[in-house]
């Protein structure tokens, strides 16, 4: 390459030395007596939904053959060895002095940014592959969780290598030790950059990292004062990134090593001392336990349960594996309120649909698609991460989720969504807006023609355009629902609806939705003049109907839960 020599560096080499977390063996906890009685298909699927990205029917059968405690142990260890880490090309940032002409420098910068983007896209694709393959689904779930917990964004951290390194950090500590993770995050280059710790210097402290460390990472609001933030910021002074932001180091001359009084304790705190002080606060295990339980259960724990899990975290010295063992073998994790309540994030929705459909999708499609639906990985909306829950769902995103699913199944093309609206072909002006005041009226058809003629240049935005290009050029759904039904010896309308819904939905189909699906299937079958039980005999027409049924199923309210 002309002006951008690439440094090919294995990412782990580019990272500052990290003490590898000693992974404690999870205890061979046994489920409480009687737990076996609730170890059924519904609950096993629920566990897959929450601890992973949904289950295929064979996976549910597999889990049912295991003892609950043994299966949970596998969840914590992974089902198969995970893929090798992606080898990351780190493009070199162009330096102004290398370029005589300003225009040339800008071109080099543009090439650099494009290359950075390409590397980020590759890495995001790799990450999506890990989620879909689900060799270690809980680990991937936790990487995603930490990404929304210890947020950093490419919007501010304009360096792909730093964002990737942070992701690798989350991967190493995903199910490790929370204390070690917090100690690591206060020296993580992306975090230092994102929360302005380069500007946090002895002579001019910047409070950003200290504030979020207390408010969002360890204690929660109300458990510290503004003075604690100011003093805490002093403890974090001196930690900064390298100029190219791919590494971090401690610069003693910028560190304030005087005494600080934080949360009532006075000492010459440094970053690690400050973190240890925070971890020792009673508010900290409560904060972490609440966040974890709420994420995995979809509803906040009650006080008794929160207290129980918080003290358990402390007892286990912040080890996460015992925590999850306890949670997943807790009958309360399987109560109705928990099983039905959680709304999937866009990533969970798309990865789950991909897994349940059993299709192969270029992972970049999932990345861009999730972005369209409101979850742009590597770009959380704010330091608080994604709000989650019902905030994922708006009228626009709900309809778009269905469209994305239709695209994965191959029955919706993005062009279709953008094409002439059926409403426009037959205008029904009786309802609203048909008669403008003061407007001399052009004849309807002339106006329609005029508008239609011009109507075609639509700015889709980069993401949507990328998605459109990618689906047109790279994607063909490899799916054969007819064969799947035939193999299961399914033929009648009701059987088809129930089987397909069972395979594609993370939660049971509700009666109203079932009625709607049956209506659809009966209507379509009668168009083909086939008897109930003969639907699969119409070859390509059968498959088309099944795919449209699958699209409908994945658009249902039930498909958004999990």
């Amino acid at each position, binding site marked *: 390459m002309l002006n951008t020599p690439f440094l090919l560096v294995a990412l782990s080499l580019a990272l500052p030395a990290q003490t590898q977390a000693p992974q404690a063996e999870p205890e061979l906890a046994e489920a409480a007596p009687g737990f076996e009685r609730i170890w059924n298909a519904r609950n096993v699927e629920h566990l897959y939904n929450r601890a992973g990205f949904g289950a295929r029917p064979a996976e549910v059968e597999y889990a049912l053959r295991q003892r609950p405690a043994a299966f949970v142990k596998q969840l914590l260890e992974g089902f198969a060895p995970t893929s090798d880490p992606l080898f990351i090309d780190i493009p070199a940032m162009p330096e102004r002095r290398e370029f005589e002409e300003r225009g040339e420098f800008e071109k080099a910068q543009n090439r650099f940014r494009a290359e950075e983007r390409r590397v980020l896209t590759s890495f995001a694709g790799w990450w999506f592959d890990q989620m879909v393959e689900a060799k270690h689904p809980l680990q991937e779930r936790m990487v995603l969780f930490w990404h929304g917990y210890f947020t950093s964004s490419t919007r501010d951290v304009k360096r792909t290598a730093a964002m990737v390194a942070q992701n690798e950090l989350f991967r190493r500590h995903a199910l490790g030790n929370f204390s070690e993770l917090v100690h690591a995050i206060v020296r993580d280059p992306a975090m230092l950059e994102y929360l302005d710790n380069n500007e946090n210097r002895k002579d001019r402290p910047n409070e950003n990292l200290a504030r979020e460390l207390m408010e969002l990472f360890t204690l929660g609001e109300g458990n510290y004062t503004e003075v604690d933030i100011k003093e805490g910021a002093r403890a974090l002074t001196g930690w900064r990134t390298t100029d190219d932001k791919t590494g971090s180091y401690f610069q003693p001359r910028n560190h304030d090593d005087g005494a600080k009084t934080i949360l009532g304790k006075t000492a010459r705190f440094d970053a690690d001392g400050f973190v240890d002080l925070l971890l020792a606060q009673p508010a900290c295990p409560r904060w972490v336990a609440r966040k974890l339980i709420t994420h995995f259960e979809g509803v906040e724990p009650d006080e008794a349960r929160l207290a129980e899990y918080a003290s358990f975290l402390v007892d286990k010295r912040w080890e996460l594996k015992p925590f999850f063992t306890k949670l997943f073998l807790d009958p309360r994790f399987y109560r109705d309120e928990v099983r039905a309540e959680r709304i999937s994030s866009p990533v969970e929705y798309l990865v789950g649909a991909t897994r349940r459909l059993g299709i192969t999708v270029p992972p970049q499609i999932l990345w861009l698609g999730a972005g369209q639906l409101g979850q742009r990985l590597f770009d959380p909306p704010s330091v608080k991460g994604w709000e989650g829950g019902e905030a994922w769902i708006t009228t626009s995103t709900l309809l778009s989720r269905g469209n994305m699913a239709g695209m994965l199944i191959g029955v919706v093309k993005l062009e279709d969504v*953008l094409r002439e609206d059926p409403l426009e072909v037959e205008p029904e002006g009786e309802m609203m807006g048909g008669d403008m005041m003061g407007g001399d009226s052009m004849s309807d058809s002339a106006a329609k023609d005029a508008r239609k003629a011009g109507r075609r240049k639509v700015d889709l935005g980069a993401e949507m355009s990328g998605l459109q290009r990618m689906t047109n050029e790279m994607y063909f759904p490899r799916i054969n629902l007819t064969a799947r039904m035939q193999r299961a010896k399914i033929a009648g309308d009701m059987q088809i609806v129930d089987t397909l819904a069972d395979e594609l939905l993370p939660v049971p189909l509700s009666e109203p939705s079932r009625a*709607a699906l049956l209506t659809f299937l009966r209507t379509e079958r009668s168009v083909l003049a086939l008897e109930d039980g003969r639907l699969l005999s119409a070859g390509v027409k059968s498959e088309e109907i099944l795919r449209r049924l699958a699209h409908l199923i994945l658009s249902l309210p039930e498909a*958004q839960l999990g």
Partner: protein
Amino acid sequence: MQRSHLDRRALLAAAGLAGVTVLSTRAHGSVTLSPALATQGEGRTLVLLQLSGGNDGLDTVVPFGDDAYRRARPTLGLKKSEVLALDDYRGLHGALKQVRKHYDAGRVALIEGVGYPEPIRSHFRSYDVWHTADIRGRDAGDGWVGRLCDAAFKDEQNPNLVVHIGGNVPYALHSTSHPPASFVNPRAYRWAGGEAETEAYEQAGGMQPERDEKKPKKRAGESSLDFLRRVLADGQSSSEQVRRAVAAYRTPIEYPTNDALAQSLADVAALVNGGIGSRVISVEMGGFDTHTDERTRHDQLMRTLDAALGPFLDDLGRSAAGRNTLVLMFSEFGRRVAENGARGTDHGVAGPMFAFGHGLKGGLYGKHPSLEKLDDGDLVHTTDFRSVYATAIQRCFGVKPEKVLSAKYPLLAFA
């Protein structure tokens, strides 16, 4: 099933009527407006037009009469003959002919020197300041339009209340309680399925009791499944309302057919007139980050902008709803005063903001920043952008601006 479909239509029609309150455009050409409306602020629509990338304010409202301007812009500077002079100091970029026409008709308020203290030169972070009206950016919480909705439309939950037409929803509209409907194209705001699937899909979403009561959040005790059904039903009706409004809209005004902004503004006009209760509509035009070869690029941008805004403002003049619409045009920052070595300009700070509308008092507002007393080569802002927001909040929505913006900002007299 057919019956429930009809019921839904009936409900839609009712919602359409309820949504517009005072300004129903359904009545056939005979709606008499309370004359107080235009000043009291009830029932106005606010349109936000974002020029993304940092529009060069000095090449939009050109201080051709200032020697310092010519010195700072030896190759980029426009001469008097190349601008549409507003007086002997400043003029609009020569391409803004239709904007000039509307300016002369009193429909353009030009607010000069708009910015904020401690300006940020990063695109993203400066957007965040504009979008949250807060220097802390997103850490401050929802977008300013979201907060406005909380103050002005606390209990009203029309899914089309806030609309963004375009790819990426600006953070200004971020709100959990009043999330925006968004689409790149109103025709694309729909679930894409065949006729039979659509019927079934509507059946699956539409079997809810209490369909007419719309609340943003999950109600106490409501299950997630019921919540999703309700949003689905809302989405189906909202998308149908939007598409109907656009499909039914008739205008003799001709918009350029090959330009995305013009087409979006045509859709905005349809929504403004559609009687579907949309009160804040946002659109975006990109491409303003003119570091290099600015002359050609910015000229083209100004031509495109003028060609889209001209017919849009003409169109708004045709109806009461249109005349009651206020358009605010802004950019995340202006550009540096001096041109750079690549015949372009780099990120700066203050710039002009435009308000358009048939109900406003046109003319010059604020104060043109000095081109001599610079802060490290940048203009010093003379009007805080939140004064412009405050004016819109007060005049369009009758809400005390302090409820939305954490501090008090002096109102401007344009609206």
